[in-house]
């Protein structure tokens, strides 16, 4: 086997290259006096786009857990929150509420990944052996428990107000807003593509074969000598760590976090995105997420045009989202781009 077989080939590797390029360009904007100006109309796209990059990491991690391994994790937001709160509590400088230790942000980000991973291991060891629907409830309940903790312990987590004064590395380096926005979306988008590449590598290797076998039938997979529990734990922890990483990045991007950012709505959005796009296909789930988040964009535009209040529009959007989920399950369980045979849903 030569260097040739290690060179970029296949989707995972294209994503890796694209990701690295984006990060490099983003870094350019962040570190050099290079500037851009963005037309005002773009702002909304960039904002939603940046959030898409972050949620994208969530959906990729969830796809690893559910799409590939069959673990029904309905509490994914808790790992997102754990990462965000870890960064906030370690890196914030004298926040108005809650703890903020003012430590350097790279260390805080690393800690975020570790904390989320450890939480994933804790939830995993206890819950992975549960039956599907019970696992869904256990993970859901865990997310709710932590949400309550974040709201209740004001002095530690900042209560409903949350924790602010989190350093924003890009914001600190770049004074011009337009350039900062550009740098942010490039950097975060690039990072997301790199994580996509990593997870794709994992799942296109024999590792992924074992995961998909587990999804198909636990017992058969064990009977051919694979330690199913170990793989389930790994998938769970990797997904959790990835979500924690996304959470940490979110905190550093937003500069402030609050429990309102970490509700079950996030989990539901990511799930619908995954199912709509087609579980077990990493690019498809990103596509599905893009559609769902695109609806957010749509409703923002429609808002300008229609004589309806914004909260009414939010409700309309959620009705559409809910019905999309129902429709996907009923009429196209493999999603738009998913493989029905892969998922065992062809009838």
């Amino acid at each position, binding site marked *: 086997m030569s260097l040739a077989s290690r060179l970029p080939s296949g989707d995972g590797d294209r994503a890796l290259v694209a990701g690295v390029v984006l990060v490099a360009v983003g870094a350019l904007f962040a570190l050099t006096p290079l500037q851009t100006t963005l037309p005002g109309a773009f702002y909304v796209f960039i904002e939603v786009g940046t959030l898409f990059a972050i949620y994208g990491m969530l959906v990729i991690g969830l796809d690893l857990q559910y799409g590939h391994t069959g673990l*029904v994790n309905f509490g994914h937001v808790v790992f997102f929150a754990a990462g965000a709160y870890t960064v906030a509590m370690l890196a914030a400088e004298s926040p108005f509420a809650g703890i903020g230790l003012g430590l350097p942000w790279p260390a805080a980000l690393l800690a975020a990944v570790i904390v989320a991973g450890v939480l994933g291991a804790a939830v995993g060891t*206890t*819950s992975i052996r*549960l*039956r*599907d*629907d*019970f696992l*869904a*409830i*256990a993970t*859901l*309940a*865990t997310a*709710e*428990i932590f949400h*309550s*903790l974040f*709201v*209740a*312990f*004001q002095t530690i987590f900042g*209560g409903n107000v949350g924790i602010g004064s989190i350093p924003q590395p890009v914001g600190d380096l770049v004074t011009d807003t337009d350039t900062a926005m550009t740098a942010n979306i490039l950097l975060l988008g690039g990072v997301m593509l790199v994580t996509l590449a990593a997870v794709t590598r994992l799942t296109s290797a024999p590792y992924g074969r074992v995961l998909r076998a587990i999804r198909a039938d636990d017992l058969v997979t064990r009977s051919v000598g694979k330690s199913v529990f170990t793989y389930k734990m790994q998938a769970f922890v990797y997904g959790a760590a990835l979500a924690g990483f996304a959470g940490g990045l979110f905190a550093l991007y937003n500069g402030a976090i609050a429990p309102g950012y970490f509700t079950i709505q996030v989990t*539901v959005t990511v*799930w*619908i995105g995954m*199912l709509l796009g087609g579980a077990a296909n990493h690019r498809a789930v990103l596509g599905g997420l893009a559609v769902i988040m695109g609806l957010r964009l749509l409703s923002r535009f429609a808002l300008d045009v229609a004589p309806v209040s914004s*909260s*009414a529009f939010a*409700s*309309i959007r*959620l*009705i559409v*989202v*809910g*019905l*999309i*989920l*129902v429709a996907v*399950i*009923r009429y196209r*369980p493999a999603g738009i781009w998913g493989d029905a045979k892969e998922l065992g849903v062809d009838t």
Partner: protein
Amino acid sequence: MGLTQNIVFGLVTGSYIAIAAIGFTLIYGIVNMINFAYGEYITIGAFIGILAAGALPVPLPVAVLVAMIGGGVVSLALAKGFFTPINDTGPIPMLLTSIGLGLALRNVIRLLAGRNARYFETSTTTFRFEGLPALSVGPVDLLGNVFVTSEHLIVIGCAVVVFVVLHALLTRTDVGIAMRAMGDDESLARVRGINTQRIRDSVWVLAGVLAGLAGVLIAIQTNASASTGYAHILQILAAAILGGAGSPYGAIAGSYVIGIVLALSTAFLPSGMTELSSAVAFVILVGVLLVKPSGIAGQEVREA
């Protein structure tokens, strides 16, 4: 506030959760799904009751009845539209469908009803028991002043009536006995000639009626808004699992445990941490799942 007062509150909460949890757990045991839209059935019941009492207007008991009937009808219609067609797909697709349906329903209600909560116009009588000895044990007063409102009594009373009627239903009627048979072993029930789809439909109606009743009672106790039912769904879920998923009797027990634990934790937690009381319900839930998934009633955790 004394322990007894908190237990009164706990009994009230436990009562309406129990009414709802029975319906929820029957759906789990017989239709084999966790219905996450059940909260919306409760909300719909609450609104039907309020509209009946306020708009028509009819006396309160009639409004309650209308809400119950409405709940049953809505539940059956939703089941036929959304759940029965996908009965064979398994618990997870059905759970996900219920999540999507619940999301949509909740927002339809929000659109129609607006953001403000609606209230029942009721005249409340409060029964006060004052001058009772405090019977302090450390920082806790065992008795102290206790009050019970007529609304409290209505809720608890309705719950008791429901339990009695339910028991009669499950033990004396054909439908009820068939429900129990299906809950135990569906294929066996089918072999014995039970029309499983008819029984499932009956369960949907029954669950809807109970949800409607619970909704009206909650609205009488507090108020009705688009998120009324959703706010309680996780407590109902916790009560059902604690009691043993699928067992209505277990659900009753589980509901009162949750109700009393909630009341006590709200009372004894430092103020500002009342949020934690809802976390307590979930901690119990997770604990049950990990230690004894079959719950109080020891229901066999069935294969999907």
